[in-house]
């Protein structure tokens, strides 16, 4: 793994790839907000279905599956805690040995599960189909400090490099007879000799990198320009207006109903 970007670019792109990052960010916000505002399983399922449709349209549905897989532990624990232990438990749904699953808890757990799934998928629409540098550049144009933008982007590239560095340091310590294989205690003990070199090497590299940034005018006070023009998205205004209208409608409906 050379960098941590999750961006996937299918051949010829997709309509979702061509959408501007700001519209996609507004979509994430709207989708997540209304999934929490809407009370019924059916409506939240519909919101989720839209996110999944966008993922399919963006040709990135397969790429979301491993991310859902990672969140599976969280989803399963929600189901267990709510299903078995929710305070309003009354109606028995299943009995598994000494454990009883209640309908009320399960219903709430299922709703939370749909909402979390929708959150993962909606963020997937943004992250999987937007180049990180375009996303950050959009934010910088909207007033985010370029320095903070730099930090966001560099983290994506530098963290994997730090992981490689940690591997090297582990090897160097094992070569000096530091046992890292075996019981949990052995592993915990071996952690301390890693910390020093990891921190110091990272600091040294950071210093060198800041020299490189200075040399390349990162701290110059003049107006910056940008190599790539952000592509203009012709339906941006309409899409944003539609999303805002949907959000507003749901809010109004929830207040009045």
């Amino acid at each position, binding site marked *: 793994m050379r960098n941590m970007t999750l961006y996937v670019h299918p051949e010829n792109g997709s309509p979702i790839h061509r959408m501007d990052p700001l519209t996609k960010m507004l979509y994430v916000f709207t989708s997540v907000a209304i999934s929490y505002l809407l009370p019924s399983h059916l409506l939240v399922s519909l919101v989720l279905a839209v996110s999944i449709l966008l993922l399919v349209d963006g040709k990135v549905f397969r790429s979301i599956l491993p991310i859902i897989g990672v969140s599976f532990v969280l989803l399963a624990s929600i189901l267990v805690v709510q299903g078995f232990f929710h305070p309003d438990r009354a109606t028995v749904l299943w009995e598994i040995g000494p454990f009883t699953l209640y309908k009320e808890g399960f219903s709430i757990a299922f709703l939370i599960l749909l909402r979390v799934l929708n959150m993962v998928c909606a963020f997937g629409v943004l992250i999987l189909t937007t180049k990180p540098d375009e996303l950050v550049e959009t934010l910088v144009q909207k007033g985010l400090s370029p320095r903070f933008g730099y930090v966001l982007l560099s983290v994506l590239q530098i963290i994997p490099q730090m992981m490689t560095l940690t591997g*090297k340091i582990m090897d160097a310590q*094992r070569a000096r007879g530091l046992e890292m294989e075996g019981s949990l205690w052995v592993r915990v003990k071996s952690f301390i000799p890693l910390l020093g070199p990891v921190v110091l090497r990272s600091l040294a590299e950071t210093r060198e990198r800041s020299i490189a940034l200075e040399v390349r005018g990162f701290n110059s006070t003049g107006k910056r320009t940008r190599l790539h023009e952000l592509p203009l998205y012709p339906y941006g205004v309409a899409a944003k207006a539609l999303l805002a209208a949907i959000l507003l409608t749901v809010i109004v409906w929830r207040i009045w109903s």
Partner: protein
Amino acid sequence: MSLLHVEQLKYRYPNRSVLALDEISFTVNKGEFIGIAGRNTAGKTTLCYALCGLVPHFFKGAYGGRILLDGDEILASPLSKITSKVGFVFENPFSQLSGAKFTVADEIAFGLENLGLPREVMHERIQDSLHMLGIEHLRQKNPFDLSGGQMQRLAIASVIAMQPEILVLDEPTSQLDPQGAEEVFTIVEKLTQDGMTIVMAEQKMEKLAAYSDRILLLHEGKLIQDGEPAAVFSREDLMELGVEPPIYTTVAKKHGLRKESTGCFPVTLEELLAFDLDEPLEGLFPVQEKIETSNIQIEELSFSYPDGQKVLDSITLGLSSEPIAIVGQNGAGKTTLVKLMKALLIPSDGRIVIDETDTKATTAAKLAKKVGLIFQNPDDQIFKKSVLDEVMFGPLNMGIDKAEAKSLALQQLEAVGLAEKAEENPYDVSLAERKLIGVASILAMDPDIIIFDEPTMGQDYEGKLRLKGIIADLHSKGKLVICILHDMDFVSEVFGRTIVMGQGKVLFDGSTKDVFSQLDIVQRAKIELPHRYQIARAIQQKREFASPTS
């Protein structure tokens, strides 16, 4: 008027008592190539920092004297203004990447965007610098996916695109393999021909001698001499200043060949060949005495990383009896091979048996008494507060009691010449010395087999001399020494047996002399010929050319 005018420059880093630069004065004219030579800690890097304004604008401390850049005083100019005129490239290619760009072209654009250049100008400059550096084909690649040599060329391209008037390079090839270094030197040569003003600090004196108009010889922060390469390298006290002259000068000195016009020794191969001298090919390579040592048997060894990339392919080798060098370009599988010998990796196929132990049946830590592996970068291991504690860490891990561990550590520190620094913080000594701490910390465990990974990288003349002594001493004590090396001069001076690796296979295994006499192997493995051997061959060819019938 000179482009750069340095006058009585003095500088001391914060919290240090000695001057890093001491009353340095010189000038650089437009289009000149200035080399900076000196041992590690002579002040080369600090001088480079001062020329591009990092001293005193980035590194604070005590500053005296002045530097005029195009008539403007560096102390009074903002750093952004200085860096628009002076480009700076340093050792580590990795940390020169911005880290925030995802393609080579965007990486070059980073500096241009900061300068606020219009888009069309940026595209033009990116194209020009990609072309100049010969990396157009890498345009869309992720910078972190490049090799060291490619990364360093990208670093130069990124700086060149900003169109500085002067390019300062601080040992830009010290972390690269010979091929990567050659790529960088080819570019530097091209820039020189294009009339760029260049200041370069470098340990490879043959290169400095070939390119420089003048050389600044530094020692302990002082400018000892500012003169033509031939004059500087002909100094009698050069070795005492920790600088080894180009090998051509050393050979000329041995034969007493001075140029009549100047009284100086020749500094390049062409200059040397102008003399009639005899340098026999025989006797250039050492023959090491074979003794009883531990034994490594490698049988049908293959290794692939989890992503399926095959690094080693059916290697069979027996290693024992004498110091052995392993050479080959980056990516040939050398480091993977020694990591397998140390049980840091487990073979995908085949096996490695060390004396009686199969590496699959043990761990790296358990093998510590048997096999010591000294890594390239000492900073990967240092974490203790004193040099002595750092060296004692290995013996203590092996269960040796504290008193004995201390005596072993002191003994090894004595051997590497660092006994008087035992109580210092490892980070307060130089990198070359830290490297020797790394060596001592492995030797203190008294392993039977010692493997060095790139011990000469970044070492100056004295560091290399000390390493030669350590290897000879280990051999005389019956230890098996294995060394991964890029420095073919070192290989040809120390090792009787050399293994050449390429693309995961052993291309050649035999006497060092035979390796270098088989040019097809040398070319396939993309290694260089040792300089002395090049000289002897060139002389032989010259003779054959002069008298084709004989």
